[in-house]
């Protein structure tokens, strides 16, 4: 919120409640009126599930479980929406996590993610479903499109939430600000409440393979977009994104060269981990910016984070402080990273990492 720390005082909640979200409030014709959201089905929670190569994303399963929980608290239903080309099967799979109903919005124009097209698809579907709460994951696509949808529907939006609940009949969110250096509660003044959830924040229930969601297939009706994908470059095939990773092995300036990063990659391979890096390592050209963790890189939330030759600057900590377990390997016993680490090893990473890699290989039978 701009003017951080100030509390909204003007206009009581009651006033806002009486207005429908789409109703115009003065000569702001350039702000599009919302797409006819008049009555909202109180308690209903719509969530956006994402699909990659026909499969539900792990964080979408997590979100499905949270949506079911919130809907039951609010006395409504959880409803999944999946957008893309041929996504009905994945929509059905949401049933395994307790979701009774889902919508699959399908179309050629949705084959690849385009913010404009996906926003349009949602702006068609959301008013028809009339949810009180709309959720997405705080993924690249979720963070791109929910602001656009929220603006059109004049709904409040809380980004990257780590806690979501229903309080006094409305959504309430807790989220990090200042790159996780502080936390804040978000309450909503709008009829529709929206949020994106940070991956790995909530529990995913065991899937019940016998259940299917009943799926309503909708053909997308989207205008040609002013944005086109011309080419897709996959720099490193099969790299799991840092924001979704359960385990991360990260290297810092101490690695000294891109060849040396091999010791980090080998440990990561054995652990099925994604490789992370400090900004110093990225700026020195040892590894690409896609791997950077921290304030100007990715914010990560893994079970295990192994920091190798990283000093623990405030901007780096900002990106990984919520890891469940932090391991630091550094030759300087005074390195600040040790004050945040659950387990510290004082030593030369070029000695330590190969031994660890070998030990884990044995342990995991690889």
């Amino acid at each position: 919120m701009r003017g951080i720390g100030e509390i909204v005082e003007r206009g009581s909640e009651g006033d806002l409640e009486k207005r429908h979200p789409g109703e115009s409030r003065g000569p702001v014709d350039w702000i599009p009126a919302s797409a006819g959201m008049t009555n909202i089905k109180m308690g209903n929670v719509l969530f956006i599930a994402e699909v990659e190569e026909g499969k539900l994303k792990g964080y979408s399963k997590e979100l499905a479980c949270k949506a079911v929980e919130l809907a039951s608290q609010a006395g409504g239903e959880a409803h999944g929406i999946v957008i893309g080309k041929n996504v009905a099967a994945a929509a059905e799979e949401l049933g395994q996590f307790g979701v009774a109903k889902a919508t699959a919005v399908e179309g050629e124009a949705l084959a690849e993610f385009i913010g404009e097209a996906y926003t349009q698809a949602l702006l068609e579907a959301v008013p028809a479903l009339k949810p009180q709460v709309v959720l997405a994951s705080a993924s690249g696509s979720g963070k791109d499109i929910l602001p656009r949808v929220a603006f059109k529907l004049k709904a409040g939006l809380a980004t990257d939430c780590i806690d979501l609940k229903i309080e006094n009949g409305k959504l309430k969110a807790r989220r990090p600000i200042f790159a996780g250096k502080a936390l804040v509660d978000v309450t909503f003044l709008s009829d529709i409440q929206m949020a994106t959830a940070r991956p790995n924040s909530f529990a995913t229930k065991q899937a019940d393979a016998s259940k299917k969601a009943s799926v309503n297939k909708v053909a997308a009706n989207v205008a040609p977009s002013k944005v086109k994908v011309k080419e897709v470059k996959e720099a490193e095939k099969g790299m799991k994104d840092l924001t979704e990773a359960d385990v991360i092995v990260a290297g810092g300036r101490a690695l000294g060269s891109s060849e040396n990063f091999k010791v980090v990659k080998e440990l990561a391979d054995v652990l099925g981990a994604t490789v992370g890096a400090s900004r110093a390592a990225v700026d020195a050209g040892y590894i690409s910016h896609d791997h950077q963790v921290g304030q100007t890189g990715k914010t990560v939330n893994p079970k295990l984070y192994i920091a190798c030759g990283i000093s623990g600057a405030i901007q780096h900590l900002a990106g990984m402080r919520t890891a469940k377990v932090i391991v630091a390997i550094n030759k300087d016993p005074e390195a600040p990273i040790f004050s945040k680490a659950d387990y510290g090893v004082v030593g030369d990473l070029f000695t330590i990492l190969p031994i660890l890699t070998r030990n884990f290989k044995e342990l995991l039978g690889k």
Partner: protein
Amino acid sequence: MKIGVLLKQAPDTETKIKIKQDASGIDESDIKWVINTYDEYAVEEALRLKDAAGGGEVVIVTAGSKRAVDSMRQALAMGADRGIRIDTEGVVLDSYTTAVILSKAVQSENFEIIFAGKQAVDDDCVQVAQMVATALDWPAIWPAEHIELGADKKSVQVTRPVAGGVKEIMEMQLPGVLCCDKGDHEPRYASLPGIMKAKSKPIAELKAADLLSGETPKVKWSGFGLPPERKSGKVLKGEPEEVCAELVKLLREEAKVI
């Protein structure tokens, strides 16, 4: 080419955040204010695009208090031509209303392209730029990493990093909004002559209250707090072989993460 840049002033990323005693907000007393990190990339890309287009104008648009003028001047010293500040004194804004006033302010400028940051490093909302695009009914690319002007000067080619190291090369018809990530261009330093010149570059002033048109915030923030402090844990000492064996055992049996 007429280029707009949405620039927010934000605390230096080194800042240690303190919470007010009554949890109603952030204690701003010791903060060093700078250009929001990503908006600095936006300024750099805007200046480069102006050059690529063979001239034009880069206009810095900021919603903020008087304090924000310093950061605007810094962008002007980097080479931007003029500024528009929407004075937010006395009004409480959220992402929604910020987008309302910013889009209202840029509307009459007829920009051909608007640069913004990928996110503000204070509120981390990741909303305002896409919302401004929506208000203007323009396309937007979030995040934008590498930007080139199309030969027709009516489109841009943009690299968009997506999950897992994948990059999409996209083409966007102008006008549109680009939400800049850290790309391969470090923001330039202001030169001494640049700093001198910036002092006389114009900054127009608008009032937020005049641009709101009755629109009101959609969210309210409260219960500010600090995250739980991480306690330092065990530091393992001994021969490398022993230490590694112990670490593996601890991760499996105590932490149960392997």
